[in-house]
C-alpha cells in the first residue's frame, strides 16, 4: 500500500463536501455550536441541490436568526416579530411559482406570532415553515419561551418554569399538524451527522412539496442554545437529547397530509 501525502488528497478533484454556494462568505453571527448555523446551511444546500436559488424567497424573523439574509445568497425579507407567515403568504400569493419559506424561532412562531402561524397553516398556504425550537429566547438574553420545559430555568423563570405560575410549554407542532391546510409536519434535530442527514431530507421534501400545491410543510428543528442554557456546545447537545427530546420527540408527525400513527 502506497502512502499518500495530504497535499495529494486536498485537491479540487477530490473535494466531496464544502460550504454551500448558496451561502455568502459572511461569518455567521451565532454563538459557537449553535444549531442555527447548521439549519441555515441545510436550507442553503437544499436550495443549491434543487437549483432554485433564483426562484426562492426567504423570510427571516426577529430573534437570533434575524440576520439570516446576510448569510443566505438568496432574495430575503425580514419580517416583524411573529409576522413571517403573513409576509410569506403574500409573497407566495403574488408569485405562486416561486419557492417561499419562513425561518422562525420559538418565541417568534409560537408566542407573538401564534395567530399568523396558525392561520397561514390553516389556510393551507403553499409554503415551507422552518421552526427552530431551543426552548428559550436567545437574542434577548435567555428569557422563558413558549417552549421552555417545565422546571427549565431561564432569566425570566430563574428558578425553573413553574407551570402553576407560568403556564405550560406549547407543543405547537402537534397543534398545527391537526389543521387541514397542513400537508407535512416533522420534528428533527441537527446535532449529530445522522440527524443532520435526516433533517436535510425533511427540508428537501418540504421544498419539493411546494410543487404539489398541497399546503404548508412544517419542519420543527429541536435545537440547542448553549449560551442561554449556560452549557458548553457539546454538553448542550447532550442536555437536549436527555431533556428536550422526551418532551419534543423527533420524527414525522404528518406525512402527505396523513397523521403518522405512533
Amino acid at each position, binding site marked *: 500500500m502506497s502512502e499518500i501525502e495530504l497535499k495529494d488528497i486536498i485537491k479540487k478533484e477530490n473535494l466531496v463536501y464544502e460550504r454551500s454556494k448558496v451561502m*455568502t462568505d459572511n461569518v455567521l453571527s451565532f454563538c459557537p455550536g449553535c444549531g442555527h448555523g447548521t439549519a441555515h446551511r441545510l436550507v442553503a444546500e437544499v436550495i443549491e441541490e434543487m437549483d432554485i*436559488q*433564483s*426562484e*426562492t*424567497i426567504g*423570510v427571516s424573523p426577529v430573534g437570533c436568526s*434575524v*440576520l439570516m*439574509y*446576510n448569510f*443566505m*445568497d*438568496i*432574495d*430575503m*425579507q*425580514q*419580517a*416583524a416579530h411573529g*409576522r413571517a407567515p*403573513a*409576509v*410569506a*403568504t*403574500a*409573497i407566495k*400569493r*403574488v*408569485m405562486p411559482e*416561486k419557492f417561499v419559506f419562513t425561518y422562525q424561532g420559538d418565541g417568534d412562531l409560537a408566542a407573538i406570532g401564534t*395567530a*399568523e402561524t396558525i*392561520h397561514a397553516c390553516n389556510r393551507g398556504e403553499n409554503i415551507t415553515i422552518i421552526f427552530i425550537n431551543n426552548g428559550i429566547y436567545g437574542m434577548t438574553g435567555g428569557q422563558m419561551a413558549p417552549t421552555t420545559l417545565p422546571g427549565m430555568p431561564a432569566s425570566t423563570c430563574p428558578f425553573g418554569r413553574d407551570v402553576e405560575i407560568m403556564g405550560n410549554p406549547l407543543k405547537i407542532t402537534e397543534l398545527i399538524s391537526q389543521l387541514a391546510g397542513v400537508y407535512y409536519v416533522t420534528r428533527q434535530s441537527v446535532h449529530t451527522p445522522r440527524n443532520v442527514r435526516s433533517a436535510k431530507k425533511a427540508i428537501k421534501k418540504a421544498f419539493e412539496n411546494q410543487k404539489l400545491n398541497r399546503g404548508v410543510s412544517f419542519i420543527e428543528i429541536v435545537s440547542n442554545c448553549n449560551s442561554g442554557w449556560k452549557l458548553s456546545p457539546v454538553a448542550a447537545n447532550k442536555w437536549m437529547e436527555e431533556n428536550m427530546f422526551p418532551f419534543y420527540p423527533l420524527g414525522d408527525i404528518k406525512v402527505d397530509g396523513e397523521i403518522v400513527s405512533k
Partner: protein
Amino acid sequence: MEKELRLMKGNEAIAEAAIRSGADAYFGYPITPQSEVIEYLMLQKPYETTGMVVLQAESEVAAINMVYGAAACGRMAMTSSSSPGISLKQEGISYIAGAELPCLILNVVRGGPGLGTIQPSQSDYFQSTKGGGHGDYRLIVLAPASVQEMFDFVELGFDLAFKYRNPVMIQSDGIIGQMMEKVELGPQKPRRKPEDIAKQCPWATTGKPVTRGHNIITSLDLVAANQEKFNLKLIEKYKTIREKEVRYELINCDDAEYILVAYGSSARLCMKAMDLLRAKGIKVGIVRLITLFPFPSKILNELAGKVKGFLAVEMSAGQMVEDVELAVKCKAPVEHFGRLGGMIPSPEEIVEALEQKIIGG
C-alpha cells in the same frame, strides 16, 4: 369616448379604483365603516379577471404584514381599515416605512379613542401625519373630499408610493366612505408584468437571478452610525416630498378676510358655511387640504399676511389646527372648531364658531 359614470359608495370607489389601477394585491380585515371595500372586491372577483390577489386576513396585523410581503416583491399592494384597525397596523406601517416599501393604506376614520364609535371622525390626523408607529418616519397622506377623489387618489397614491418608495395613506372618514355619489371611472389599466416590475423595482425580492446580487428587504441596521445615516436619508426624502407634493385647493381666497382650513368631510361642510357667511357679507375663503402630509404650510403662511384670521374646522379635539398654527407663525389669529366622537358639525355651527372665535374674538 363616452364617460363611464357610476353611482357608488366611497368605499366601493376605492375598491373599483384598486382593480382598475392594476393593483396586484389587497389584504384586509373587516371593520365598520369600511368593510364594503373587501366585500366589493370579493364580489368583483378581480383574481379571475386582472389576477389581483384579494385575501381576508386573520387580523389587521396580518393584513399589513401581507402588504409588506407583497410590496417587498415590487407589487402594488394595499389594505384598508378604520381607526382601531389602523392602530393595530402601526407596527407593520413602521416596518414598511423603515424598509422603504411602496404601498397604499386606506383609513376610513371613525371616532375614538378605544373602540369609540362607528360614526365618522377625523381624530386620526396625528396618527396619520406624525408617523403613527415607532421611529422617525412619515406617510404621504391624501385626504379625499368626495367619492370621485376616493377613486382618483388610489392611482395617485400608488404613483406617489412607488415614486418615493414610501407608504401612502388615504385618510378618509365614515362620511366619505359610506356616502354615494356619481363617479367617473377611469379605464382599466393592465397589471404590470414581472419584467416591468423588475425594471421599475430593481430592489424587489422576486428571486435572485445570476445577473445580480441578492436583494434584502429589511428595516434593521445594528450599527448606530448606519441607522442614523439611513434616518437622514429618510429625512431628505420627506424634504423632497414637502417641496414637491403639497396639494391643496383654494376656494374664494382672493378677496377673503377669513379663512376656513379643512379637509375631507369638514371641507364640504365649510362650503355651505362659507356660502352662509358670504350671504351675510363676511368675506370667507377655504383652504382645503388635499395632502395632510406634506402640509401646505407655505400658502397658509402667505395668506396669514393678508387675512384677519383662520378657523381650523375638523372633526377632532384639535389636531390639524396645530399644523395651521405652526404654518401661520402667529401672523394672524388661529382658532379651532370641531365636533367629537362621531358628531358631525353643522354649517351653522361653523358660522357661529367663526363669528365668535375669530371675528368677535
